């Protein structure tokens, strides 16, 4: 690569600023597909020109200027084909304006809100965000979601077409929509993180690290919209969860429960950054679900010699229930109650969600655990059996099999 300075300069520029350049082109053209095609045209032209006369002083400015001209070319061709004369006149009037790097306003925040618009299918929101903001290729996204590249490509085209035909705005929502739409953006980032988190690293090493990608996106939103407690809460939650990544699996790829993890393997910087962020968020006195989840994650990584403060965690899950009255939150509440020492309370709370979570592996795993502790052996084994059949990856399944064996041994002796 070193003998091709043009390609090196192009790759450096795109790595640093692809999202910004794309966002700027979408902002000017109002058309996702056109902007993507124009950016592609511009990068191809860059290689030809930069090889001939060397990379320009401002590669980003060059790409944007040429990208804009390529977009105009494409629109002109379209106008000739379909007689979209109206569009052509509008664009021609703007052509005179020269663009300098300073003009590249950061349009990425608007772009994120467009990609995460609730009128799009949830999975498409995730794919579109990874593609346009994260700069992942269609192939990388397809691999990350174990989808075929064709299917993912079609999903992305459908989403882009819907943005255009349905008139999904390219705008930062106003105050009356802000909370709801920000919630949608944060949910997309959190889903990306969870998708990466739920897969054992040993299982599919080719998968792009979605956890890192989600942290990048959360950081970006925090930079673009500083001072929002929930954005800080989400970023804190991701950092406080991700700081334990190296301790989550043992050498054999087995899942290690939190209380057995080697805390020396935790990423100390990331943990501290998460804790600081959470403090800052809470000081803003604008509570929200992500701050509560981050506070729970913080309690898990700050447990002293006396162990984790499960009573405090119980209180936090009760607070979270007010925002998210879902069966999964109730399940987590039940676990916290049980870990705090109240087995009867935990099993009662689990009973309340048994119908909703009948096919949910963690529900049966939790029930198995507390039944075992309560000395109800047969019921516990049955719950482990059910959890094992429902496990979606081999690390979880092995972990549960081991717990079941330990339970049997303890009772046999």
């Amino acid at each position, binding site marked *: 690569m070193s003998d091709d300075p043009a390609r090196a300069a192009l790759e450096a520029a795109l790595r640093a600023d692809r999202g910004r350049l794309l966002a700027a082109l979408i902002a000017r053209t109002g058309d996702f597909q056109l902007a993507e095609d124009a950016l592609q045209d511009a990068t191809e032209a860059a290689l030809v020109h930069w090889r001939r006369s060397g990379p320009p002083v401002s590669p980003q400015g060059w790409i944007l200027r040429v990208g804009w001209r390529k977009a105009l070319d494409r629109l002109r061709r379209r106008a000739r084909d*379909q*007689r*979209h004369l109206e569009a052509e006149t509008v664009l021609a009037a703007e052509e005179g304006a020269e663009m300098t790097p300073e003009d590249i306003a950061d349009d990425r925040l608007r772009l994120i809100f467009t990609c995460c*618009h609730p*009128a799009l299918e949830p999975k498409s929101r995730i794919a579109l965000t990874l593609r346009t903001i994260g700069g992942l290729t269609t192939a990388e996204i397809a691999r990350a979601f174990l989808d075929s590249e064709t299917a993912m490509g079609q999903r992305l085209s459908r989403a882009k077409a819907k943005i255009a*035909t*349905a*008139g*999904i*705005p390219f*705008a930062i*929502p106003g105050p009356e*929509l802000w909370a709801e739409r920000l919630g949608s953006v944060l949910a997309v980032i959190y889903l990306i993180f969870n998708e990466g988190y739920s897969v054992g690293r040993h299982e599919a090493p080719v998968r792009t690290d979605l956890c890192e990608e989600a942290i990048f996106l959360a950081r970006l939103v925090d930079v673009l919209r500083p001072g929002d407690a929930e954005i800080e809460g989400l970023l804190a939650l991701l950092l406080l969860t991700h700081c334990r990544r190296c301790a989550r699996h043992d050498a054999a790829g087995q899942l290690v429960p939190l209380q057995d993890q080697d805390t020396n393997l935790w990423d100390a910087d990331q943990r501290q950054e998460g804790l600081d962020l959470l403090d800052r968020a809470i000081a803003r006195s604008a509570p929200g679900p992500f701050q509560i989840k981050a506070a729970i994650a913080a309690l898990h990584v700050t447990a002293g010699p006396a162990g984790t403060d499960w009573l405090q965690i119980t209180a936090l899950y009760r607070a979270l229930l007010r925002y998210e009255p879902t069966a999964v939150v109730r399940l987590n509440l039940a676990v916290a109650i049980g870990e705090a020492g109240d087995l009867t309370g935990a099993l009662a709370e689990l009973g309340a969600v048994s119908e909703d979570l009948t096919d949910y592996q963690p529900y049966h795993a939790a029930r198995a655990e507390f039944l075992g502790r309560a000395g109800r052996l047969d019921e516990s084994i049955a719950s482990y059996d059910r959890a094992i059949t429902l496990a979606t990856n081999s690390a979880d399944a092995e972990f549960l099999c081991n717990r079941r064996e330990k339970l049997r041994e303890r009772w046999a002796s």
Partner: protein
Amino acid sequence: MQYMALIYTDPAKAPEMGEKMNGEYFELTKRMREAGVMRAGDALHPVSSATSVRVRGGKVETMDGPFAETKEHLGGYYLIDCADLDEAIKWAAQIPGAQFGTVELRPVVVFR
């Protein structure tokens, strides 16, 4: 952009279509007119009054009742002119039928 807001409701679930509901619709229509977004809008008689028509082999076939066998029926519509989908959603959410049924927003095709 023009959007057709199609109002689907289940007559069984709909509260009594009394004075109050009509009043709410009239109020909304008035607000839409004042905001300059209203292009058209009508309420439809119930599906018991519907006639489905199709032409097969050059022959006109008519049938009693609606084409689709669903619980929620098209009960009315608004045609509104909005800047973007967010503005259209804002108006659609104010349609009384959205409280117990579904409003489907469809962008209108512009032929050039």
